[in-house]
């Protein structure tokens, strides 16, 4: 498949996630949108890895593994991030009884 298709698909998914971040007020949904953006990037990394592999196949049989391993590490980091992030959201809910980021305007002060 042409790499362009993957590129534009990833961009579309990424932008959908971004619009979600900008337009929603629920902290959990914003969080999920961020996960979607990460996944869009993951998809693109895998696509590029395969592109690279196809291009340099003659030189090295295992070329392109780096990209896929990056995806793996991104998943690792995402998992850790989600665990901490959800803990923060739970604590926030416990304190203000809402997950609405509109109330998180302490940055103003």
């Amino acid at each position, binding site marked *: *498949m*042409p*790499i*362009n*298709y993957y*590129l*534009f*698909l990833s*961009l*579309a998914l990424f*932008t*959908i*996630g*971004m*619009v*979600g971040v*900008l*337009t*929603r*007020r*629920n902290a*959990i*949904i914003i*969080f*999920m949108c961020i*996960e*979607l953006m990460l*996944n869009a990037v*993951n998809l693109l990394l*895998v696509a590029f*890895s*395969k*592109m690279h*592999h*196809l291009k340099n*196949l003659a030189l090295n*049989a295992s*070329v*392109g*593994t*780096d990209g*896929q*391993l990056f995806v*793996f*590490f991104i*998943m*690792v980091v*995402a*998992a850790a*991030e*989600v*665990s*901490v992030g*959800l*803990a923060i959201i*739970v604590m926030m*809910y416990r304190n203000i009884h809402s*997950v*609405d980021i*509109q109330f998180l305007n302490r940055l103003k002060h």
Partner: protein
Amino acid sequence: MNVTPYIFWFLSVWALFSALMMVTSRNPVYSVLWLISTFFAISGHYILLNAQFLAVVNIIVYAGAIMVLFLFVIMLMNLNKETEPQKNRWLKLVGALAGGCLLLVLVAALKDAELKSQQAMVGAGSIGLIKVLGKELFTRYVVPFEISSLLFLSAMVGAAVIGKKEITHQNS
């Protein structure tokens, strides 16, 4: 007859549709379910790209563990109602416009890139197999791998510390 393009288009439309539904759903629970659907579509793409290991990990870690965690939190907080207050309509519009502009700019910038003629290998190649990746992971990437275990440990501790009730608060 090559069936690959059809599969690609099917998976792409599925992923985009699910993502849009995730963003637009009022109910957080539906959002979670649509996101899981998106993840399945993306895993389908991984399989199409012959990256089986990542496809499986994606389903297990993301669709399985992480999204269940999300669902769990939502249920715990009893947020499974359409109670989310809506943002200002203008702000929503501006947000959507800004995202659209970003897409437009990036597409416009990249459509003339030299990548046009490049192809991604589909349905072939062995680098996505667990054998190849595992060998790489435990040789060249062994240090980051070990460090990621430390990251998990610290995330665990952090989540526990943040999530537990404050003792001082209880005492007082």
